[in-house]
């Protein structure tokens, strides 16, 4: 984050609950990030094909695509983009699978927004 202003960092949030997207967008934009939110993974992945995002925050369980599939496809497109997974269905297997799959971080819901912001900062610290 040394050479870039925080304003240049783009964050994508994918969650099938609007309230999660809205709250994440509101609080991350307050810190100056550019935030785009998606209720489904498929349109989010299409958007990613058009433009690179620095961090993708995605729900673990979504209606259309599994978040681990999102993780794989994001990494295939942009290996340097970090993916943070949040989930209401936290279990050890899911955590291990996510971290093995190269997720940057994994949070059970409810997520403390401060913790999520810290994680995003860490993810961006080498960029």
């Amino acid at each position, binding site marked *: 984050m040394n050479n870039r202003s925080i304003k240049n960092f783009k964050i994508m949030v994918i969650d099938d*609950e609007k309230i999660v997207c809205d709250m994440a967008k509101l*609080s991350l934009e307050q810190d100056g990030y550019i935030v785009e939110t998606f209720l489904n993974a498929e349109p989010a992945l299409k958007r990613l094909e058009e433009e690179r995002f620095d961090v993708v925050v995605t*729900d673990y369980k979504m209606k259309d695509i599994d978040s681990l599939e999102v993780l794989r496809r994001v990494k295939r497109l942009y290996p340097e983009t970090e993916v943070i997974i*949040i989930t209401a269905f936290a279990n050890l297997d899911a955590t291990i699978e996510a971290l093995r799959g190269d997720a940057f971080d994994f949070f059970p*819901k*409810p997520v403390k927004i*401060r913790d999520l912001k810290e994680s995003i900062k860490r993810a961006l610290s080498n960029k």
Partner: protein
Amino acid sequence: MIKDIIVFLKSILLKRRRSRAELPFNLVFSRFKDILNSNTKALEIMADMGDKLSGDYLFDINYIRKAYSDLSEALNNSIRSFDTLTEKRGPQKIKGFSGVIIKYPELHDVFARIDGRIKKMVYGEVTGGDIPLIVLYEDITWDMRHAVGGKNANLAEVKNYLKLNIPDGFAITTSAYDEFIRHNGIDKQLKRLIDEMNLAELKRLIMGGNIPPELDSAIEEAIQRLLGKGYHRCAIRSSAEEEDSEVSFAGQFETVLNVPLNKEKVEDAYRNVIASLFSERAITYQKRFEFEPGSLRMAAGCLVMVDARASGVIYTEYYSHKTSGILINATWGLGKSIVEGQVDADRYFLSKEAEPGLIEKRVGKKKR
């Protein structure tokens, strides 16, 4: 004089002993602790929910559902313990029964009403997208209870966790109900027909409705599976979203017995079960418990028939006219006539204790 004092003291001590025998001190103390613990737990859950609402957290509907489920359980436990603390025991006879008397039955009614309303709000947002149209009993889990309805969920729990002998079968989910109602355009007329109490027309639309192709195939597949196991007949049972929960809906909806395991017959019985959601009696019952008629969704259970020598109904928490305990009604053959109140069944009333004791038995005048 001293003799008089001794007699007086004896009378007090004996009186106390009798009272303790009615409700042992360890039970009173344990229930008192339960009330305090449940109350503390309820307050902690509410404080946690307040904390999550502060704007410092990202949370979704699953958190709200889990938190409310825990809160509801804590309050329910608190009320049950309060019942024990305030109950009266003795020779009182109410409507033919003697036994424990609940002092504040209104608490149960108020709790059921509020609990029902909140659950409606919390679970009302579930969309049918993720819910299959048919779920086999062995695959039903407790978190599917709103999709398969209370009766199916409870039976599946008993089958899958307690491993009791429950007939084989499958659930036709609330998602299937939504599909059926939408497919036949009933959703657009439902509110108007209920408002006008034109229930005959509503029944006609349901009974004449087509089963959506995807549901039709799913039912056929599930039937073939049961036929393959050597079964030939089934019962199609109602299992509405809130049925057998805090509000029992006992005897309100249809059960069709002895249905041949044939797709057309099963689907006909299924339509009958759906239609029973809108009978005049069922609508009145829903209004009484503050469910908006038309908002409740009907799942159904298809269970293989059992060749019953005798059958019955057990109320493990029987509250009526301030009486409480376990009530068993039994008769020869199938139990449907009991549920519908058509038979003078045998009645057994037992105390609800670690070792239930028979308080009263009455053999009904019934035919084999």
